[in-house]
């Protein structure tokens, strides 16, 4: 046991400035979250309420256990796009009758809850989380179906939704659909493919074709209730397993279904007698400098995240631009890899590759704390084999089968993003701090590279190179890349699962780890060939 000491001076001007900058960013993000919470805006919210209906988040809040934590996923999906922030859908991990479930709720106040391309991506991400972590899923359905103008981006990939439901069922992970309203045409397969279906009396409408379409197709006169009403499905078609008298009753029935799932987690249980960190998580606001050029010691973060601030460092004297070591978070054993001074050299890469293998040997989940500008470049390093050493690290990360969680604290640039288990390397969860930035390289570097290349091209063509144009180009590129590296942009693209308050890191990790342990934790039996 090694209790981390802190050297953070919370009274310093630097700390205060860091903190102010971080609080500023948090306020901005809160504003964006508020937009998602506001759904379709006051007019549509009022109309929805006037119909005696609950809002999407009200349904979710009623569904989860009282006073339990709820981790909303991808709240900023669609940020920066033409669609409302949040993509007309709420997804998250909540505890229902003591069982962690992936909950998905369409937001009917946003265009009737219709699915746009971002909603589809957000739904896929939730389904991935359910599948990878063995979580039962509960679908709170009230959706007008696909957003028709963008059907080309929805229709063909969107079929996965129904495939995922039945594959989940086949994998013994139950799926529940609570139908509050429209669920027609393709949407009818949401309840259709679910293991348990609850429909709200006089509200649920589930059919392949509505009265006009039926009239056109066969000439038959019909109405909504006989084609797809809850009573009909409960008594005649058998598609509804339970008939709810109202929305609240549907949620009650949903909870009682989950209660009877006889759910058991397959991962090992956490040790429950752990200590809270010795250092105040509040300090995390002042640790990360707003300018990512200034490095910070990740041990200061670890000391405020892990149980009892107790961290046993591995290979502390070797490759010390990367900190590796063991700890527990909310009682779950973890290995941690954290960038210390941005750059990854050959030593760091080899150290990481070894550490990841050790974690797989002992079935220990891994947490990656990102603040990297990438692998070192330069003659000495290339000649020293930085590519093959970086490849070893990426090999280890790619083939590791223990669960990974990535937290983007600061920079996550270049192949460093890959080596530290970036989005493409399928960490079970990836969250970003408001201070995070991710791109192929830093905006200035990228603009500078473009400038050098352009200057060389002009030279080779014997043309004059306009310094004024170069300055304007560099500025434009810098601004664009800066904007596209920011967490809200990346979150909007679903490149993370959400932006979190650094002070919540421990809670988010705790929930993520508990979620992950619904499935088995098993290290890899083998890796790709390590290039020596």
């Amino acid at each position, binding site marked *: 046991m090694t209790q981390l000491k802190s050297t953070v001076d919370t009274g310093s001007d630097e700390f205060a400035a860091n903190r102010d900058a971080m609080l500023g960013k948090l306020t901005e993000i809160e504003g964006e979250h508020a937009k998602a*919470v506001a759904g379709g805006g006051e007019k549509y919210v009022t109309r929805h309420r006037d119909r005696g209906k609950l809002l999407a988040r009200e349904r979710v809040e009623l569904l989860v256990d009282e006073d339990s934590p709820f981790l909303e996923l991808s709240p900023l999906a669609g940020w920066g796009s033409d669609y409302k922030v949040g993509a007309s859908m709420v997804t998250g991990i909540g505890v229902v009758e003591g069982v962690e479930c992936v909950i998905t709720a369409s937001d009917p106040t946003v265009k009737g809850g219709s699915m746009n391309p971002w909603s589809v991506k957000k739904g896929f991400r939730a389904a991935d989380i359910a599948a990878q972590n063995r979580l039962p899923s509960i679908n709170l359905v009230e959706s007008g179906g696909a957003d028709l103008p963008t059907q080309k981006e929805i229709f063909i990939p969107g079929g996965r939704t129904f495939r995922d439901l039945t594959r989940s069922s086949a994998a013994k992970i139950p799926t529940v659909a609570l139908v509050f309203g429209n669920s027609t045409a393709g949407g009818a397969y949401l309840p259709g493919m679910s293991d348990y279906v609850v429909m709200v009396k006089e509200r649920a409408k589930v059919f392949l074709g509505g009265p006009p379409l039926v009239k056109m197709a066969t000439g038959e006169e019909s109405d909504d209730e006989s084609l797809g009403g809850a009573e009909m499905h409960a008594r005649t078609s058998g598609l509804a397993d339970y008939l709810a008298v109202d929305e*609240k009753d549907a949620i009650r029935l949903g*909870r009682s279904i989950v209660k009877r799932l006889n759910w058991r987690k397959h991962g090992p249980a956490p040790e429950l007698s752990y200590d809270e960190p010795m250092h105040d998580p509040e300090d995390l606001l002042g640790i990360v400098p707003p300018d990512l050029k200034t490095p910070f010691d990740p041990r200061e973060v670890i000391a405020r995240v892990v149980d009892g601030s107790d961290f046993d460092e591995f290979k502390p004297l070797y490759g010390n631009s990367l900190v590796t070591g063991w700890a527990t978070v909310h009682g779950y054993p973890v290995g941690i890899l954290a960038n210390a001074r941005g750059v990854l050299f050959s030593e760091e890469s080899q150290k990481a590759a070894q550490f990841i293998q050790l974690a797989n040997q002992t079935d220990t989940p891994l947490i990656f704390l990102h603040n990297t500008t990438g692998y070192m470049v330069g003659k000495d390093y290339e000649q020293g084999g930085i590519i093959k050493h970086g490849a070893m690290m990426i090999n280890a990360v790619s083939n590791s089968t223990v669960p990974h969680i990535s937290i983007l604290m600061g920079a996550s640039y270049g192949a460093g993003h890959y080596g530290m288990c970036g989005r493409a390397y399928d960490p079970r969860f990836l969250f970003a701090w408001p201070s995070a930035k991710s791109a192929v390289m830093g905006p200035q570097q990228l603009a500078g590279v473009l400038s050098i290349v352009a200057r060389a091209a002009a030279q080779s063509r014997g043309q004059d190179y306009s310094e004024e144009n170069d300055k304007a180009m560099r500025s434009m590129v810098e601004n664009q890349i800066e904007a596209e590296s920011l967490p809200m942009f990346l979150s909007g693209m679903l490149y993370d699962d959400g932006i979190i308050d650094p002070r919540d890191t421990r809670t988010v990790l705790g929930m993520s780890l508990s979620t992950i342990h619904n499935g088995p934790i098993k290290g890899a039996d083998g890796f790709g060939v390590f290039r020596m």
Partner: protein
Amino acid sequence: MAITSVLVANRGEIARRVISTCRRLGIGTVAVFSDADADAPHVREADAAVRLPGVSPAETYLRPELLIKAAAGAGADAIHPGYGFLSENAGFAEQVAGAGLTWIGPPAKAIATMGSKIESKRLMADAGVPVLAELDPDEITEDQLPVLVKASAGGGGRGMRVVRELDELGAALISARAEAASAFGEETVFCERFLATGRHIEVQVMADAHGAVWAVGERECSIQRRHQKVVEEAPSPLVERVDGMRERLFDAAVRAASAVGYQGAGTVEFLADERGEFFFLEMNTRLQVEHPVTELTTGTDLVALQIAVAEGAPLPAERPESRGHAIEVRLYAEDPAQEWQPQSGTLHTVELANTVQFGLSTQDSGIRLDSGVDNGSVVSVHYDPMLAKVIAWAPERTAAARSLAGALAAAKIHGVVTNRDLLVRVLRHPAFLAGDTDTAFFDRHGLDTLSEPLADAETESLAALAAALADAERNRAAARVNGRLPSGWRNVVSQPQVKVYDSASGTHEVRYLLGRSGVTVEGRDGVRLVESTMDSVALEAGGVLRRFEVRRYGALVCVDSPLGPVALTAVERFTDPSAVLAEGSLVAPMPGTVIRVAVAEGDEVTENQPLLWLEAMKMEHAVRAPADGVVAELGVSAGAQVELGAVLAVVTPTS
């Protein structure tokens, strides 16, 4: 003839009281119990216990032959009757003696003489004891009004009527006779002048078989409801005030006891006016409920003396001196605000801090507790709803009143509505503290005000918040996953947590958010959560920090604080539609027996029309139509036993 083992022919606190002294003296104890009392504390505490099959008193505690058989079977050589039941039954006293057992009580003849109110009054008058003239019911005149009609064989206020108008007399006589006949098997009634604002003063006497008669001390029991004593004290504030009254009173009491050749413990009751004039009411030939105030002021164990006298021992040479002041209150399971309606149910918790159980000295705390119940006791509809007596002793009367009020206010009493708040208000009332106590106390000072809960609306609202926060802790502790994560944590906050509690005064919806900076409560600014566990919540409101103790029993949440006790019912988040009652359903307001049904299914009924009658706690309750309509369902018939909340009938309103 030394007693080795005593059968206590009683239940509840008095059984425990007698057992307590026997234990101290080294005498064995035998309890008896009805089926409803099988788990009662007195049964557990006795050395042996004998079942009396059945539930009603008539089947059990009122069966002399069963009691004598039980004594023989369990090896008891004496019987202590306690109070009530057979304690003043001369026949029983004779049977006990006839069976060769020692009767711990007065001679049967003294019981019989004093049992007849008419005869005893004549005898007392002859002995020089002041009595109120007995009036012939048939010759009452206008200027003799108001008069009191009393059952000759009565007690406990039954068969008693106050008549203020002459034309009401006939009806009062008929109903008093009927009640007396059913309660005591003897319908004789008589009349006497009614002193509306009198004081009830009584003298504890103790006499031995050798001619010694003590007037041990007086008690005042003026504060009564429906002729039942509620607050009793020694000495009497009136007697303290009027010069020479005590001597006259004691003299009269000794004469009364001597006139009937009394032995053992007894009480001579008088009605007194403010000038100190008093009249003989009756003599109770048993140990009184309120005997502890005399024990505390004299340091005497009256039960021990009863046993000694029964064994033939003489009283000590010196009569004990009285010192300080003792006040007793009777804690009843009843709702003073609802016409004293008796309450039943499970008494989950009854806790008074630092009390001495059945003690002769109250030691440091100043509080003695004579309780018939324990945590978890079931208060049934079959017997008297008195739960316990709480008694305070202090050198001064006001100090005793203050410490008793404080102990009661701080007591945890959970599960059953009691008169506790009323008792506290009485003990803190300026008139009470000034010694202005008379039998009309509740009328004079307003039962409405006196029965108000100690907890005001603001306290109730804070208690609901405390309950919500404690329940949140409980939910977190019970969570199967993420139990140690922050309560109600959200990365995207959209709305507060909601908990709903019902109280007697309405519904409290608590909407709160727990966050990094503590709790935010909708509609309540400036509240700070200092600490919370599932049992205790410290809240700072209006700059004042207070601790709320929270206990939960199923849906019942009891919140105690220095601001007063609050009982809440947690409202479930969801209701099962199949458990929702049909509109117009009439449910049993308490457990009881259906005694009459006046309608049949399909009958048309008008609003307020009685449909059926329920008997519970010796009282009849009419169940009435809530509106004009038709009896759609009738689920019970006469004789049916019903539980609280059972659907009795459904009336479909005609709209």
